[in-house]
Structure formats: C-alpha cells, structure tokens
C-alpha cells in the first residue's frame, strides 16, 4: 500500500494572490510527511455542482501543522468555486497522488522551468533541494508568464536563495519573451552539467522536451490532463507514449523523464 488517503481537511487560509490567483492552506492532512515534490492532491470542490474532483499540485507543506498549500488560478467552474471557500470550511482531499521528481546529483545544475500555473511543483522541488543541502546557487528557477501579474509569490521563491529568472511575454517584468527562450539563452551560456525540470502549459513543455533531446540534457517534465479519478482506475487521463500505447498521467505520471511522452 502506497497509502493514498481520502480525508476531510479544513480550510486554514484563502489568500488572494490577485489577478485570479489564490493560495489555499488545508490542514490537517495525515500524509503530509510522505509528500514528494511533483505529487498532487485531488480536491472535492465543495458545493459547486461540478462532478469530478480537481487536481492541484502540492505547492508547499508544513510538517509541523500538517498543512498543505496549493496555488491555483481561476479558470472554470471548479476553480471559481474554490476561490469562494471560507476559512474553516471542510474540504475533502485525496492524496498524495502521482509520482514525484527524482533529485539531481550534487554535480548538476538544476534548471527548473515553471510556466504560469506550473509554478507550484517547481517551488516545492526547489525548496526540498535547498533543504536537502543542495547549493541554492546551482538552482536556476525560470518562471514565465504572459505578464507580470502571472508571476505570483516571487518574493517567496526568492527567499529560497535560488536564482530566479522571471520572464514575461509582454516584457513587463524580467526577460522579455517566452520563458523557453530565456532557458535557451542560459543554456547557451553554458551552466555546465544540467538537469532540467519543467511544469507548465503544453507548448512550453513541448519546447523544453525538444530542447532536452537536442542538447541531450536529462530531466523530467510534469504533465497535465483532465483527471476524473486521479488514482489510475478510470483510464481517462491518458497521453500517448513514444514507445507506443498510452500512459495514465495521474498514476504513471504526472512526472515523466524527458522524451518519454508525446506531448
């Protein structure tokens, strides 16, 4: 038993990060200690009439308080309802789910690429690396969005001591352009032996995946798919594998080695 639990947690805090982004703290979650970066929880959005749960990467954990943080953007009905939950409200969550990232070796530079709402698992990965004694200087945290407002909790990420390279398509903050261009530029400058980690919209992941292949850089991507069950029993969240057949993103992923999945 890998120990997935379905539990009622309480909404400890709903923090409005502005421009449609929210941070939510839930506690207590009994499995908080076993969560690895890249894993996600499946949330029963209370009282909103959507039928399926909604998946959210774990953004942060507090082992002391047994709390989990997620960051989400209001997109549709589920996330809209989630933004309206009140402190103290009860919330059923299922987790921890999916595979996590594998750690880089000490000799590698960890290039983390977060696109938009793909930031949360990258943050948790960075935090865990730092906590495990990985040199923060050797973590490059690329964080891209369309505009400044898409880059949330920047101060918090910087606090980890990692190098944060923001990128905005409209140039309103940091590197002007696609975050993948920023990554390409940095790689060209040659930060030595590199391992890449990426989470974000599909086009970004596709580019990163190709870049990794071209430059023979190892690493992992965290994918997304609509997830009815989150535990591997519905066969709904599939993506085609390069070797043929399908993979269930919820259980076989969401973290995959570069090149494994046809994105």
């Amino acid at each position, binding site marked *: *038993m890998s120990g997935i639990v379905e539990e009622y947690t309480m909404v400890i805090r709903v923090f409005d990060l502005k421009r449609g982004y929210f941070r939510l703290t839930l506690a207590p979650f009994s499995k908080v200690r076993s969560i690895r970066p890249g894993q996600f929880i499946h949330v029963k959005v209370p009282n909103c009439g959507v039928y399926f749960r909604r998946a959210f990467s774990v953004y942060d954990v507090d082992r002391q308080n047994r709390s989990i943080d997620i960051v989400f953007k209001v997109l549709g009905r589920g996330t809209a309802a989630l933004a309206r939950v009140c402190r103290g409200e009860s919330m059923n969550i299922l987790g921890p789910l999916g595979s996590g990232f594998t750690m880089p070796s000490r000799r590698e530079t960890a290039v983390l690429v977060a696109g938009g709402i793909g930031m949360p698992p990258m943050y948790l990965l960075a935090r865990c690396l730092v906590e495990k004694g990985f040199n923060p200087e050797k973590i490059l945290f690329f964080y891209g969005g369309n505009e400044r407002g898409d880059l949330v909790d920047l101060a918090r990420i910087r606090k980890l001591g990692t190098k944060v390279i923001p990128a905005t398509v409209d140039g309103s903050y940091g590197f002007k352009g696609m975050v993948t261009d920023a990554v390409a530029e940095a790689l060209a400058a040659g930060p030595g032996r590199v391992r890449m980690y990426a989470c974000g919209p599909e086009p970004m992941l596709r580019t990163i995946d190709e870049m990794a292949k071209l430059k023979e850089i190892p690493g992992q991507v965290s994918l997304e798919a609509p997830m009815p069950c989150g535990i591997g029993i519905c066969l709904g969240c599939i993506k085609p594998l390069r070797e043929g057949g399908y993979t269930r993103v919820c259980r076989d992923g969401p973290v995959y080695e570069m090149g494994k999945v046809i994105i």
Partner: protein
Amino acid sequence: MTPDLSVEIAGTKFNNPILTASGTCGYGEELADVFNLSELGGIVTKTITLMPRAGHPPPRIAEASAGMLNAIGLANVGVDRFIEEKLPFLEKYDTRVVVNIAGWRMKDYVDLAARLTDCQRADMVELNFSCPNVEMGMEIATNAALAEKAVAAVKKVFPRPVIAKLSPNVTDIAEIARACEAGGADALSLINTLVGMAVDIETYYPRLTNNTGGLSGPAIKPVALAMVHKVYQAVEIPIIGIGGIADYGDVIEFFLCGAAAVQIGTSLFVEPTAPIKIMKDLKKYLSERGLRNIRELTGQVRTYQ
C-alpha cells in the same frame, strides 16, 4: 448484534453486497492503495478481450451533470496477461472476483470463458454484451435471441456462475433479461451506461473521440432503478443493481427495487472510499430499524395499487 450484510448469488456467498463495477476499478491494484480489497463483497474486473487493446485516443472521458461520459474503448491487457499478471494479485484478498469479458463474435465469449475455466480465482464471469457484434451487425445487448445464444454458449464451457450484464439502451429490458435467463444465466447485472454525447461549443468537436459515449453516475440512477424493478418482476434469477450508486440510501433503493447485490462504478472516481463508507452506513441503517440482514430488503418496495 451487528446486522448481516452477506448475500448469496447463484450459490456463491459474498461477504457483503458491495461490488466495484467493471471498468471503474481496473484489476484492483490501484484501489488496493486506498483500502483493503477484502472489505469489498466483490470486484468486477475491467472488461477483458482476447487480445490486448489500447482503447480509443483521448479525450475519452467527459464531465456531465451529476455524472460523466466515457468511451474508453475497452482498453485492457488481454486475457493472457490478465491471467498471468493481474489475477494473481487478487489471490491474497478475501473477496469475490468477477471477470467481465467481451467480444465481437459469439466465439470470443466462449473462448474467453474457456480460458478462465481453470482460473479458480475467477469466481464468476460477467458478460458485457455492449459491443457491436461483427457477425450480426448489432449489439448482442439489444437482441434477445443473440443474448440467449451467447449466454448458453458460455454456460457450456464455464463451470461456475455466469452473469449477463444488460444494457439500458433498449425498448424492453425485461425481454432481454428473460432471454438471458432462458439461456441459463445465473444472475443479471444492470445497468450498463446510457448512450450519450457532448460537444465542445468552441471547437465544434465532440468531447469524446468516439463521438458518443456511455453516461454513468448519479444522473442515471432513476433509470437504473426503474429497470431493476422491471426486470425483478420478469425473472427469477438474482439481480445485481448498478447505476449511479453514491451512498447507502442508493443501495437500499436498489435492494427495495429487487437487487440482491450492487456494483459501484463512477462514484469510485469521486470518492474511492465510498464502498467502505456505504458499508458502515448500511449497518447503521439496518440496526436502527432492527433489520437483521440486508437480504430481506430485496424487492420490498411497496408499489402503489
């Protein structure tokens, strides 16, 4: 005294009446990460075909009001890998295993059942008739004569109980039920999904690559109850009720309408521990009313007139 949840179907005892439905619990491995499978009355495995199948390309599931649409396309590992890799996993659990099988010609069902004959872990087989029949050009599920023949053919080769799973997409489900009974079915399970569709109004594409899919979940519960009630009056063999079950109240409703056991499908996606909670609530319901066992509820609905 805690009430007795055990039931008997075709001479086979189930520790409790809660089975997980085919296609909604894989081969059990994933749910075993969430709870102990021995808590289940039984597990009905994902439909097995002779050859492995990757299934339809995505998207093959869509959300609906109080339910969902699916067109997985019978993705499965094929009967050989099932017997070698999947069935052994279930050895260690004290639960019944019902193996759901499907094919495109009568012979497929017979071959599959024959392959399973020596697998003692396969307590029963359940026949999924909802594939277009390549010989006859229609679903066995919608044709009484075909269904009767198919059941009879499987009965000849499979020594343990055979369940026929009925489709709701028919004018008269009682007719198909009687045919399956005549063919020798030991039990009936109903309902499978209702044919449904959904379209993305931005792209104009259907929400499933198969264009249509099967509707399941609480949305279809009233339809399932009406059909169980109708079939209960038409046949003598036990009925396993399926369709939108989400809580203990739903289970009681199915029993009152004539079910001797139930299967839980889509609810597992939303609440994988639902069977455990339901079991607890069923016991409470029964003991609060001084009912000694759940079996006595079967068919007790007080229909008007």
